[in-house]
């Protein structure tokens, strides 16, 4: 592509813009893009960002690593916690968290466990360490690098991370009171969720991507926002900060 940024950089920038100053959030293992987003937000408009909820507080990594749960990635940080404190964080919730998985459905539920039946799956996935952040945090983001009919399905085979379940009534019945999934970011587009149906809704297309392309990659029917727009691409300032402060090693560049 002739774009001056990679998909990884685009998604990190998009996510970073939605993180507010003073918020507390975290990314789990295998979360290069979310971690970059948090660090970029902190380096730009959100200097009071608190990176906490895993087993460390406010890291200053020297390199952007694929997992933040790794001393290679941690660099300096302000404090260490343990899984006991994580238990409390999981109950009290964060402002934001991130998830990705094997499958995503139209209600923003995520499957990390299995494709096919639980008892005899065709594919057994890794499972999820912690789905409570999805329930207790104020919102979460889905960052899906594989956008295909295989991964964007009508109904997840196994519901690991609760998103909007089967819609408003089911959320009420389960006692889910927070926003749940806020945006779904893929290499092709951004979805938000319809306020009434709580289903995925196309919000913006990345430059050069057509609606038909997203339709063909998505295994369920979805609505489109009346104000469907082109995704606002990274500014020079954002890319500069990202490449000099957040990801000097260029890990995001290889994500396309």
């Amino acid at each position, binding site marked *: 592509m002739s774009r001056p940024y990679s998909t990884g950089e685009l998604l990190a920038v*998009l996510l970073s*813009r*939605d993180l507010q*100053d003073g918020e*507390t959030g975290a990314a789990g293992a295998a979360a290069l893009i979310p971690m970059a987003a948090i660090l970029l937000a902190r*380096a*730009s*408009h959100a*200097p*009071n960002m*608190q990176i*906490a909820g895993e087993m*460390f*507080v*406010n890291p*200053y990594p020297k390199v952007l690593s694929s997992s933040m749960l790794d001393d290679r990635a941690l660099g*300096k*940080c*302000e*404090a*260490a*916690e343990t899984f006991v*404190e994580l*238990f*409390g*964080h*999981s*109950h*009290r919730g964060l402002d934001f968290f991130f998830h990705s998985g094997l499958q995503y459905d139209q209600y923003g539920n995520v499957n990390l466990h299995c494709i096919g039946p639980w008892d005899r799956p065709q594919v057994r996935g890794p499972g999820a360490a912690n789905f409570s952040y999805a329930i*207790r945090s104020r919102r979460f983001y889905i960052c899906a690098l594989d956008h295909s009919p295989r991964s964007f399905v009508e109904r997840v085979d196994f519901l690991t991370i609760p998103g909007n379940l089967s819609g408003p009534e089911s959320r009420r019945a389960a006692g889910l009171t927070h926003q749940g999934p806020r945006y779904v970011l893929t290499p092709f587009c*951004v979805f*938000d969720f319809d306020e009434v149906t709580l289903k995925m809704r196309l*919000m*913006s297309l990345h430059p050069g991507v057509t609606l038909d392309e997203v339709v063909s990659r998505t295994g369920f029917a979805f609505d489109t926002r009346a104000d469907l727009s082109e*995704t*606002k691409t990274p*500014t020079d*300032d*954002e890319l500069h900060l990202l490449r000099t402060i957040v990801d000097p090693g260029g890990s995001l560049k290889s994500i396309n």
Partner: protein
Amino acid sequence: MFPDPVAQPHPQRRSKAVDVADIGRVIAEALADGGSVCIGGLLKQGRPVALVREVIRAGRKGLKLFSSPASGYDVDLLIAAGCVAETYLPVVTLEHRFCPFFRDAVERNTIKAHAVDALTVVGGLMATTNGVPYQPVTAWAGSDVIDLNPLIARTTCPFDGTPLFAVQAIRPDVALIHAQEADEFGNIRHLSTMTYADALIARASRTVIVSVDRIVPAEKILADPTGTTIPGFYVDHVVQIPFGAHPTASFPNYSVDEEFIDAFADIGDAVRKDPNRRDAVEAYLDRHVRDPRDPFDYLDAVGGYRRLSALEDEARFI
């Protein structure tokens, strides 16, 4: 929807450090009459006594007092000043003698001193930090403390039906804590060997105010993250107050001022025996709490550098 970022100079991270001259206002704003306050440290160590004096200076009344499971001088001072309505304190003692104002207030029935034990307070704070409504307890039997304890209920184990107890989550309005070091972002370091329930109290309370012997550069925190005992995001305000734990200790920086505590207890015992001597209490509170304009004034009033350096020496040579 993702906005274009407005081009602007990037803002700076906010400091949580409060000037010592403003700490009274901060405490007055955080703690209302009738509110609940939880005090860190233990017995004669690491008690945030300077912050407690600010509670008295703010004129707070009707407080509900929590603490790590063993408390003494500071609680007695709050009771002497008439700030307290109820206590949820397992132990109130000066160790070698009783706390006279606590004793007197209970005997005259002017405060409600609930029967609780360490597991009540610790379990209740644990429930809050764990984000659950109660903590199961099975280690209670036979004591009158259980029957009088207002914070517990009986329940059964959902797996095998065994009867057990539950202590309800305790969420104090304000935590007052003393430690040795912090950075301006509220990352706290205890240098003492024991840290009591301080981290637990900080995690469980709505507003957390910490006095420290020294505010240190943030680089010192980053150089040793495992030394941080309370991460900054649990802390609302941090204030450097020299000898802020006096007359209790702040190990390894300074030791207990036993004479000072005894002098206070002597007044308390005298008043307990002869209520006409109440003016001695007011004189004490004036001199040590109300009159000093700031903590430096207080330190002059309690003996100045001569006394304080002796307490530093004691901590160093133990």
